[in-house]
């Protein structure tokens, strides 16, 4: 099947899944203000289903033109020297580029990894990595969101237990590995800037002790600028993806 058709059909499924997810949550929410926000998003998803169906029809009418010319390979993130020359890396990325930044880091480093998913469910990122033919067998997931899956859970409100969990996981790793924090920006929902900065400094030095590296991913957003400006200097290298 043509790649555009494939992506459109996948998009239709994602939009329908999102619609059903929001719909099920609406029934569980008491708070009228929250309910209103979720209803608005649910209605957007309903509109999106219609838009994707329209695109599928449009593509059907233009069958001859849907083959794609080969896209020039996108440049990855420059990660040369990681662990050997520098061990802590701070990467900022736009939200729309965020999934590809994660893929590029894991693909580029190609080693065992401890993946800390702070505010999202690891199942989604795992599926994305599998779709991009990445070996998730090399990745040990830790989640700060309770969900079904075979990953370890740690409470996002407790930075001490989080650093203990990272250290425990580091002790169990074989060969060269790195820790990926997705994302440090999400920590601000639970913690003050000072607590986050202390945590970054502490974990950087702990991971150096294990001969591994750590990658802090942050969202490049106006609201996060103050925190990002302070985290950057605590790391050996800063990259804007």
């Amino acid at each position: 099947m043509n790649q555009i058709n494939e992506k459109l059909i996948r998009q239709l499924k994602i939009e329908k899944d999102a619609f059903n997810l929001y719909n099920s949550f609406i029934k569980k929410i008491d708070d009228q203000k929250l309910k209103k926000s979720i209803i608005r998003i649910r209605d957007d998803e309903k509109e999106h289903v219609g838009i994707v169906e329209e695109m599928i029809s449009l593509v059907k009418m233009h069958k001859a033109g849907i083959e794609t010319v080969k896209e020039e390979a996108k440049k990855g993130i420059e990660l040369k020297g990681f662990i050997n020359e520098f061990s802590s890396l701070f990467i900022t990325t736009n939200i729309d580029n965020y999934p590809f930044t994660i893929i590029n880091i894991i693909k580029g480093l190609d080693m065992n990894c401890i993946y800390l998913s702070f505010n999202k469910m690891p199942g989604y990122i795992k599926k994305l990595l599998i779709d991009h033919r990445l070996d998730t067998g090399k990745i040990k997931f830790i989640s700060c969101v309770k969900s079904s899956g075979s990953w370890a859970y740690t409470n996002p409100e407790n930075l001490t237990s989080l650093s203990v969990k990272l250290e425990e996981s580091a002790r169990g790793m074989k060969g060269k590995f790195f820790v990926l924090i997705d994302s440090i920006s999400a920590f601000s929902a639970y913690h003050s800037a000072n607590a986050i900065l202390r945590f970054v400094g502490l974990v950087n030095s702990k991971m150096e002790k294990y001969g591994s590296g750590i990658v802090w991913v942050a969202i490049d957003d106006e609201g996060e600028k103050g925190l990002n400006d302070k985290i950057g200097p605590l790391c050996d290298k800063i990259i804007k993806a």
Partner: protein
Amino acid sequence: MIKKNNLAKMFSECLSIEEIPMLSNLEELRGLVNNSRLDDSAKAKMLKHIGHLIKDTLQHARIITGLIKGAVK
């Protein structure tokens, strides 16, 4: 009815779907359409639709991030 401390978990699932499969698929779709041999008007129409979906998805992610912050306070 859902407890307040379960709201964060619920919103995390919403954020996961918006920021991971939704955005990555739309961005890849945009790249494919840009590089397709579709005629100019069809391509423009497709890109306009995709742009609209991406804009809404980013907006949803922002709203949900705010809801998570509110839920954990």
